[in-house]
């Protein structure tokens, strides 16, 4: 039940090391290439994912779902193999696939760059220049792949238990040394790590089951398992399909109970035209990241503009075509008419969505036109929005019309939705911390210090003033004001002012601490 994962660069000797180590230990040896072939054969378009990384293209929502399926596939295969007997896996991300399984021996194999170039020249029959370029490109691709799948740095040595430099050591000797290391107690399975593997296996099987069922295939879900109790978290826009989850997972063995939870926070961003370069987008991403929220986009077209097709308006056939249906019936050649609704969106909305997808904050979108009443009726009232942000509406009609329409929308939604509704321009003052907020913080802090210092340094006088009604100022006696009334008035004025200053001070402190 031992697992050894060897991360390797191209032509770095990792494959030979893995094979030698597996042979010495009597373990199975599994290469990433075998795993990706198995995943592709099972219908996951790994090649598409790879090419997205190679071509430095942003991940679309459909690709994100395929990425999660692939990760689940890899986890399930590694866990299954490791449950039956020891396993040596060599690939790019083996050290990251089994989080929390502490007995995995995580190794990285490296080799002198010159030797790698010579190997590439020999095996691929390339010139030195091309071999060098090939190795650099593949290393960069692998770096990006690890970043895309696990948001981790592939070359970070702290991710590994040992980095093996094969430049001055034969593969055989390195494998012999590693056999001893593999026998250390830290790398032996315990009941706790076995349970963790069972949990990861069950969660990955459930994720694959949801990804294989055409009804739930396009759902963006997170699956966890704890001793047979499976928790599935889905985005609010998939609420309509939530009831399918227990039905689909009923077919997965070892599932005792299914708990379905909708992601708790959601931000709705309404805008006339989305600009991926706008400051508002970065502010929304920042807020959503802090709140762990999904951001749903709603683009409001001018009356004369044609509305782009939104996913809600597509037929089920069109929606299924937007995925990656590879089958023996089509040989991987799709119909030209296959409708890719993401490319039909206007560029601003598409790029804004891509930015949210890359930040892991995409919560769906819709495009419509109409008045605030139409907008309200199109909002899913069952979704628990935590914030509605309204950006400039009707930007093509000039700033005054745009401002008026935006304010009308804010006002209407405030009256009819029981959630905070703000203009996009207010996000900075409401949720961000910049130089202006810093000056306010200093102002509030100074007021609080002055008031506290004033009270604390005149405690006796203040107490006498409050308890005995002693007048602190002779002028009061001259005008004949009652001391009791005066002290009550002073307290009534002082307490709210102090509360306001102290509240302002703590509000900005919490904002610095990103605790909204």
């Amino acid at each position, binding site marked *: 039940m031992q697992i050894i994962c060897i991360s390797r660069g*191209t032509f770095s000797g990792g494959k030979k090391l893995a094979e030698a180590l597996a042979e010495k230990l009597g373990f199975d040896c599994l290469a990433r*290439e075998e795993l*990706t*072939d198995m995943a*592709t054969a099972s219908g996951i*378009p*790994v*090649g*598409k994912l*790879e*090419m997205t*990384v*190679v071509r430095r293209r942003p991940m679309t929502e459909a690709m994100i779902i395929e990425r999660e399926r692939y990760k689940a596939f890899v986890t399930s295969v590694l866990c299954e193999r490791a449950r039956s007997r020891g396993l040596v896996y060599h690939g790019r991300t083996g050290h990251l696939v089994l989080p929390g399984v502490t007995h995995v021996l995580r190794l990285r194999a490296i080799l002198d760059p010159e030797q790698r170039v010579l190997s590439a020249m020999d095996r*691929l*029959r*390339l010139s030195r220049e*091309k*071999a060098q*370029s*090939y190795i650099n*490109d*593949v290393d960069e*691709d*692998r770096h990006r*792949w690890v970043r895309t799948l696990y948001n981790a740095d592939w070359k970070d040595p702290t991710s590994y238990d040992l980095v093996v430099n094969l430049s001055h050591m034969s593969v055989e000797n390195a494998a012999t040394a590693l056999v001893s290391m593999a026998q250390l107690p830290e790398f032996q399975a315990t009941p706790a790590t076995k349970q963790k593997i069972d949990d990861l296996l069950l969660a990955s099987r459930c994720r694959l089951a949801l990804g294989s069922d055409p009804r739930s295939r396009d759902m963006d879900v997170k699956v966890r398992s704890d001793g047979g109790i499976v928790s599935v978290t889905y985005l609010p826009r998939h609420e309509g399909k939530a009831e399918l989850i227990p039905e689909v997972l009923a077919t997965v063995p070892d599932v005792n109970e299914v708990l379905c939870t909708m992601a708790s926070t959601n931000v709705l961003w309404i805008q006339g035209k989305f600009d991926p370069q706008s400051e508002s987008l970065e502010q929304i991403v920042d807020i959503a990241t802090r709140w762990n929220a999904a951001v749903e986009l709603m683009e409001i077209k001018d009356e004369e503009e044609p509305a782009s097709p939104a996913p809600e308006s597509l037929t089920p056939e069109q929606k299924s075509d937007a995925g*990656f*249906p*590879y089958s*023996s*019936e*089509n*040989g*991987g*050649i*799709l*119909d*030209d008419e*296959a409708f890719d609704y993401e490319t039909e969106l206007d560029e601003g909305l598409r790029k804004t969505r891509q930015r949210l997808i890359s930040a892991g904050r995409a919560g769906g979108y819709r495009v419509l036109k109409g008045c605030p009443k139409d907008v309200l009726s199109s909002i899913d009232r069952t979704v628990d929005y935590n914030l509605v942000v309204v950006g400039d509406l009707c930007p093509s009609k000039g700033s005054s019309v745009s401002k008026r329409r935006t304010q009308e929308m804010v006002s209407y939604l405030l009256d009819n939705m029981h959630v905070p509704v703000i203009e996009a321009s207010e996000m900075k003052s409401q949720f961000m911390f910049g130089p202006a907020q810093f000056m306010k913080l200093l102002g509030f802090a100074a007021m609080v210090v002055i008031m506290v210092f004033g009270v604390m340094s005149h405690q006796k006088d203040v107490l006498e003033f409050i308890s005995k009604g002693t007048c602190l100022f002779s002028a009061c006696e001259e005008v004949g004001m009652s001391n009791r009334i005066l002290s009550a008035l002073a307290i009534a004025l002082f307490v709210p002012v102090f509360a306001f200053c102290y509240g302002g001070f703590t509000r900005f402190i919490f904002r610095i601490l990103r605790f909204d």
Partner: protein
Amino acid sequence: MEDRLQIMLVDDEEIVGKRLKSSLEKEGYAIEFFLTGSEALKRLDEKHFDIVVTDIRIDEIDGLEILDAVMENSPETKTIMITGYATAEIAREALAKGAFDFIAKPFRPKDLREVIIKAARQIKRD
């Protein structure tokens, strides 16, 4: 001499040839489809093709070997690799060896047509 763009298509799946051939012929290209690498290599010795579109994983002689043969005998021919089993390593190897482009399956014929148009433009420039 025929002025239509001469394209060789190699894939071990009949359905791929059927779907791509009809789509490309509609655009006015002259297409010859082969199910095996050996048939394709034999034909390459007999005739010059402007563009070769080949799957990477085919029996006996694979797409990379076809690419090698094309680069050796007819370097001006543009080779486009297609595969359902794409990896960064294979794509980089193909590109390092002189492939014009690389397309991962599944794809739409439209995607291939766009790459062919680019290749045709480069052929004209060359």
